[in-house]
């Protein structure tokens, strides 16, 4: 029946959840802040779409993973 089984662990050690969520969210929020500063300081004519997409992509990557670990840290196991 259940003899040859090896225990399954989470791919990321659970002790790392607080650190990961705080650091990823910090970086993510900083990049997001940079994105918004860029948005409001440039005029409609001088904005570069590539620049916007790059910063928003990086920001959403950090914020996405950061909020995942925040959920896991707070006990919402998705």
């Amino acid at each position, binding site marked *: 029946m259940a003899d040859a089984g090896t225990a399954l662990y989470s791919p990321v050690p659970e002790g790392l959840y607080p650190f990961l969520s705080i650091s990823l969210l910090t970086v993510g929020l900083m990049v*997001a802040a940079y994105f918004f500063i860029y*948005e409001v300081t440039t005029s409609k004519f001088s904005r570069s779409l590539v620049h916007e997409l790059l910063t928003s992509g990086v920001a959403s990557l950090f914020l996405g993973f950061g909020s995942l670990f925040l959920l896991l840290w707070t006990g919402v196991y998705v």
Partner: protein
Amino acid sequence: MELRCACSVASAILVLLSLAQTNANAELVVIKADRKVDLSSHNVRSITNLKVENTGFDSVSEVLFALPSSLASNLAFIGASAYEGKVKNRATPVNLPVKLTKSEAILSEGVVLFSIILIKPLKASESTLVDVYTVFTHLLKPFPEEITQSDVQLVLYYDSVYVLSPYPVKVQTTSFKLPSNPRIESYTKVNPVKLADAEIKYGPYENIPAFSSLSVTVHYENNQPFAVVEELVREIEISNWGNIYVTENYQLTHGGAKHKGGFSRLDFQARPGISGRASLRGLQARLPPRAHSVYYRDEIGNVSTSHLRLDKDKTELLFEPRYPLLGGWHVTFTIGYGVPLQDFVFRAADGKRYLRFPFGCPIQDVVVKKLVVKVVLPEGSKEPSVQVPFTVEESNEVKYSYLDSVGRTVVVLTKKNVVQEHNVFFEIYFKFNPVAMLVEPLMLVTGFFLFFIACVAYARLDFSISKSSASYQARIQREELIDAVQKLRIIFVFRRANVSDKLEASLKELARTGDIQGCKAARKAADAVLRESTKDLNAKFQSLQCSPRPFNIVPKVEALVAKEKEKQEKLQQKHTVVVESFERKLSSQEIDNRIAPYQQRISVLKQEIDDLLQSLDDF
């Protein structure tokens, strides 16, 4: 455990008795049968020790065990065990498979037969020991059926004094174990019978033919609260991020004698030994070790009357219902907890994952009329297959939880009449690709990205209603102007200022090394860049001048451009002077004197340009 249980068989079974006489089973004889029935709780548990001898000529591989069919619907659990060795005490018991037999094996009307497969066939004139363990629910009938708060609970129990056996029994005894210090109203006397302490012993009776029965009745005090769970829904949700959440919804009833009359909380509280003796005051749930985030609540909210004890092998939750339960009263509540993933989910040798979790109700000594176990597998799990050591109904559902797209597969196991003996591990095997774990974070990432895209779109779209109004026009022009100024500024600050720095640097280099040729080359390159940027600058300036604007900016920009030009010229002149002086090998004092006027003018211009740029910012 390889125990097979057959239950919920209520239909009466008709058979020919004559068939029995010709059956090879008739060769078996029970030499000794001891039955012990435990009546101290509200479930009836009995152990029957049988010593079976084969008096025929053929070897026999199975032993039949009979139950009256009226009891079949009350049977929650049946198991059998035997001992490998000769000496019973030394050997460990081996569980034997038990299965309900139908058709030709049934020997008598109103009897249900279970066949027990022996470890090895019983040869002629050999004997073996078999223990049969049965658990019945709802067998004790409260009598009187209704009691007041101060009454004790009396129950009636009907049974046969003889062990119902498909074989003749040579010697047999039956004993009924009652709660300690029992008050016995009455019991049927079939000699020899003996009442000692909390036990009524019938027997020994000798040479009783097959299928004999002689009914007895015991009427006694049983103040055990009859904790009956009408329905228990256990939801086991697996998260591959390291946790299993268990939620258990209970509908609990006191199934004993119904309460009549009023309820006095004062009496109940003040005299717990006398008032409400059969009431359900507290329960104990045995949760797995390392359980965390335990909660106990109902529709109203948290119920604070609970205690949690953690130790190495188990977590004990002691809790009281929101109000004490007297006979016939109901209460609904929810218990929830989390356990670490690694304790219950494993990877099998073939790469499949499986959950290994206790099946039954964690509360001690309750009857669950209907148990629904829902196993919520992680999203993306495929091909679930269940291994339960007894028969259950199986179905599938889909559940949507946090960050789900296609929903999670839910395996639903339903079983009726569940007792503590069903609290064994079951397994659910499923296939899962670890890459599927990335779906959830990527959903979050996509969500954030869509938000940013919305911001980009918002910044680009024009939401104004009247596109011809003066203020709108002014704003558009202003934006264009800002843009033009910004471009000019880029030329000033980044391109031309850079050139000036390079020129100054080449002069310093000259002063240090005396490399006139290098300095000239640097000058040449700087001139080219300057020419180029001047062209750009003029083009930008022209475009700025072209359209009519209400802003007072053009003169400022004009002044800026002029001053900048002059500054560059002065720089170039200074450069020329220095290089010439070097070629003529003048002293550094002399050079300083010569370039002093230029230097002065340059620093003045620099200041002016900075001020102008500042004022451009402010408009």
